[in-house]
C-alpha cells in the first residue's frame, strides 16, 4: 500500500514538472518556429552559409525557463 502511494506521488510530481527535453520540444512547437526555416544545428548552419553565400542570422534563446 505504501509503495502504491509513493508511486502515485511520483507520477503526480512528474506530471506537474516538465522535463528539460519537454520544455525544448514545447519551445520548438511555438508558431514563430514555423514562420521561417530555422536551422537548429550550428554545423549545418555554417555549411548552408558557405554553400549559399549567405550570412547566418543567429537567434539565441532558452527553453529551461520562460
Amino acid at each position, binding site marked *: 500500500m505504501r509503495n502504491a502511494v509513493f508511486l502515485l506521488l511520483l507520477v503526480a510530481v512528474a506530471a506537474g514538472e516538465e522535463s528539460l527535453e519537454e520544455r525544448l520540444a514545447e519551445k520548438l512547437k511555438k508558431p514563430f518556429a514555423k514562420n521561417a526555416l530555422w536551422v537548429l*544545428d550550428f554545423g549545418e548552419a555554417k555549411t548552408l552559409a558557405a554553400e549559399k553565400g*549567405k*550570412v547566418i*542570422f543567429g537567434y539565441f534563446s532558452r*527553453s529551461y525557463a520562460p
Partner: protein
Amino acid sequence: MQVEGGAFSTPEFKEFSTKVVPFMHVTTRIEGRKDEGLLAEKGGRGFPYIVFMDEEGGVLAVQGERTVAGFQKTLADKVQRFLDLRAKAKAGDPAAQIELTLLEGDLGRISFEEVQTRLKGKKLTDEQQAMLGDVELGAMISELQKSEDEAAAKPRMKRIADTFASGRLPRDAEKKQMFLQITLSYAVSEEDPDLVEKAFGPLKAIYEQQLGNDPRVQEWARKIEDKIAEMRDAQKGSGSDSGIEEGCGEGCGEGSGDK
C-alpha cells in the same frame, strides 16, 4: 521572449529569413547536449541574443533593435561594412587593416592582446585610439564573464572597478552599464562607500533614462543610499547589512531587452 511573438512571427520576417541562414540556438541545460555553451562563445550575456555570423561562425555584427527593419538595417550597414573592410584588408589596404582589427577585437573575434600585436607600430587616429580603449574595456568584461568561480572573478572585478575609479568607461551603452554594475557590486563587497557612490550616480541615471520613474528603480536607489549611509556609519564604528543588489531587480535596467 517578446521577439518570438513579435518580429519573428511576421510575414516580413519570413521574407527576410530567405536572405540569410536563420539559425536558432536554444540553451536547454540538458546535460551533454551539443553546443550547449554556444551563447557565451559568441559573446552573448543574456537572452535573447541576436547576431549575424559568417560561414565560419565568426560574429559579424550584434543586433540591437529587435524589429525586421532593424535586422535589415544591420545586414545592410554593419554586416556589409565588416565584409567590405575584410575584402579591402585582404587586398592590402593598411587603413582597412587597422579598422578591421579594431572591429574584430570589439566583436570578440580576437583577443585584446592580438589586437595590440597587430596594431603595434601603426599610427592610429584619435577615434581609433578611443576604439582601442573600448576594445580593452570590453575585453575586461569578457574576461570576468569567463571566470569559473568567485576566486577567479574577484581580481577581475577589482580591475574593472580600478579602471572606472581612474575615470575610464566604455562608450558603448550596454558595456558602460555593465562596467558600472560590476564596479558597484565590487565596491559593496569591499565596503567602499566612496566607490559605491561614484558608480551609483551614473548607473541610476541610466536606469532612470531607460525606465523613468519605475518603482523598482526608486526602491533599488533607496537601498543603495541606505547602504552607503550604513557603510559610512560602519567606518565610524557601527553598522548593519541591508542586503542590496548591484542591479535594480529582474528585468529592470536592461534596456529594451528581455534578458
